[in-house]
């Protein structure tokens, strides 16, 4: 089969079953050359299984995996030109940092001089040159993480696989490593496939994100695609916070705008996922930061404030609408100006233009 060279990894109708349990159901997508690609989903969604299938640690029940046009799903792990950064790093404890980094190149029988140079160069890239002779247990968690990264990058894999590599680090370190990982990916030009359950991690680093749930691909796209134009309720709820309100479609969308009616009778303009027909049931998803509160008026969406939560950069208003639905509104704390609303007060809820996303059930 001829594959376009621009696709680094091509997952074709891949199914994985463990006994009677189906971990992946017919998943298909492309990972492009030179991109930072993230598999995102809750635990048990099949993202790690998929990564381990690309690495060669799990067999493929059905379907095919191509790596730069070459079919690889039958190859053993040690014959695949991909390397993995493991969740718990899996550094060889009896080898020094340099020996760990050189291991892959040594197995590929590269000349000693090349191994020496490349090891030095890659340790410099992850800023560990000073620790070259240490053993893994003499390093901090963050340093071990860098060794794991260096070890996987050293043999110049065609694709680098990262299995929740930051999850064992504390928050500050994790945030610093995000920036660094992205930088290293850009510097080396290697395709990264990154697995995480942390949506913030996914949003900040990825060129594209594949959201998975229950063994199925839910949506694939850039961070802003997925955040602003979720395809279904799962994606809308999993990535960031959102408000979901049940609606009925008034008429089929015209020019990408679809008016729909809330239970209270208020009509809202939304941008629909797909092409729903008139009368279809669905939900609109609106991010809390795309809502604002104003003084009550004659018409529009109204609700009563239940609670206000001060969160530093912004304040969260929890309210219930007149039809009983609950809603969260976030307002940035820009300082001094508006007095805000107190619990028990009524307010009119304004929706930013284009902020309502219609998701048909």
């Amino acid at each position, binding site marked *: 089969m001829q594959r376009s060279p621009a696709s680094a990894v091509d997952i074709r109708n891949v199914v994985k079953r463990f006994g009677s349990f189906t971990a992946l159901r017919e998943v298909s997508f492309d990972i492009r050359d030179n991109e930072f690609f993230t598999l995102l989903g809750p635990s048990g969604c099949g993202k790690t299984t998929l990564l381990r299938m690309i690495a060669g*640690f799990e067999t493929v029940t059905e379907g095919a995996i191509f790596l730069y046009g070459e079919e690889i799903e039958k190859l053993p792990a040690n014959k695949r030109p991909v390397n993995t950064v493991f969740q718990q790093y899996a550094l060889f404890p009896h080898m020094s940092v340099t020996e760990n980094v050189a291991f*892959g190149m040594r197995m590929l029988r590269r000349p000693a001089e090349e191994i020496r140079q490349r090891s030095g160069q890659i340790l410099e890239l992850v800023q560990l040159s000073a620790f070259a002779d240490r053993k893994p247990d003499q390093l901090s968690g963050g340093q071990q993480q860098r060794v794991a990264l260096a070890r996987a990058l050293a043999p110049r894999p065609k694709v680098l696989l990262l299995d929740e590599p930051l999850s064992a680090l504390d928050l500050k370190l994790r945030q610093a490593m995000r920036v660094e990982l992205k930088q290293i990916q850009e510097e080396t030009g290697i395709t990264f496939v990154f697995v995480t359950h942390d949506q913030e991690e996914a949003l900040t680093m990825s060129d594209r994100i594949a959201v998975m749930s229950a063994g199925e691909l839910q949506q694939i796209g850039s961070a802003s695609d997925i955040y602003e134009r979720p395809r279904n309720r799962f994606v809308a709820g999993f990535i960031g916070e959102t408000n979901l309100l049940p609606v009925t479609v008034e008429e089929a969308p015209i020019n990408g705008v679809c008016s729909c009616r809330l239970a209270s009778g208020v009509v809202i303009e939304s941008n629909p996922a797909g092409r729903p027909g008139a009368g279809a049931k669905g939900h609109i998803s609106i991010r809390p930061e795309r809502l604002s509160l104003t003084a009550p008026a004659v018409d529009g969406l109204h609700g009563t404030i239940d609670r206000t939560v001060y969160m530093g950069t912004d304040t969260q208003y929890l309210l219930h609408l007149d039809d009983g639905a609950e809603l969260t509104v976030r307002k940035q704390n820009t300082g001094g100006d508006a007095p805000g609303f107190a619990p028990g007060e009524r307010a009119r809820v304004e929706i930013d233009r284009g902020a309502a996303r219609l998701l048909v059930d």
Partner: protein
Amino acid sequence: MASAARPDSGGAPASAGLSRERLWLLSPTLLMIGFFLVIPLCLIVVYSFLTPGTYGGVEWIGSTAAYVQFLFEEDFLSEELTFHSAYLEIYFGSFVQAVTATVACLILGFPTAYFIATRPPRQRTLWVFLVTIPYWVNLLIRTVSMLFIIRDEGPLNALLLEIGLIATPLRIAYTDFAIGLGLVYSYLPFMVLPIYAAIERFNFSLVEAAHDLYADRWTTLREVILPAVKPGVIAGSLLVFIPSLGSFIAPDLLGGGKQLMIGNLIALQFQGSRNWPFGAAAAVILLTIVLIVLMLFTRKQAANAGEAR
């Protein structure tokens, strides 16, 4: 000012108290070792430098005759000493037997331990239990049973004759092979258990990491698994080698007492030959060899560890 004059006064009593407490905790073991190991050991060393009594026991006359006897033969008439190697050969033979048994235990025990350690946790307990089952039966009874199975008219030969694999009964009992068989059977669990413990602690994601970094199975075993479980292999090997070297029951029963090993040689001096000093000297020589082997081992280990740092 009084406290300044003795700067250590704060710390010293505290640490002394701690070590006194430790001594109390250790005292039962220390007493045990003192009475039943150190004192008998001293007695043996002393006896090895005495003269044999006529009906066993010793005469309190100092002599190095026992050690001389180990290497030299005294001519009856001329009292000339000539070198003879019979005892050295027994030691060498025992050494070879012990090494063979250790290697055989390693070859059998490593895959067994690996198998057990890679079972689901609940099954492991059962397998470990099965490995230890033979220890519920006395070693003597187990060895005699083995002799019964391998003797010329025993079930093993009967089976082999029945299926036509052999025409005449195999001579297994009362050979070096039988002794080896007995040693392997007796000490195999001592090899399996420490290796099992080491493999169980082994982090198997390291195997995935090695495969991921282009290592094949054999290289992974050699470069990743073995270095990690080496302490278990060494412990198991010592636990098999040392008792094998001085073993008594297996060579006595399975070897028919004809193939002398160190253990039988020593026992013989205290029983039939009634030459206690020579028996004591043989024991001291064995002990010295074992200690030297152990010391070389630990020194090499320490050197390896130092090199690794």
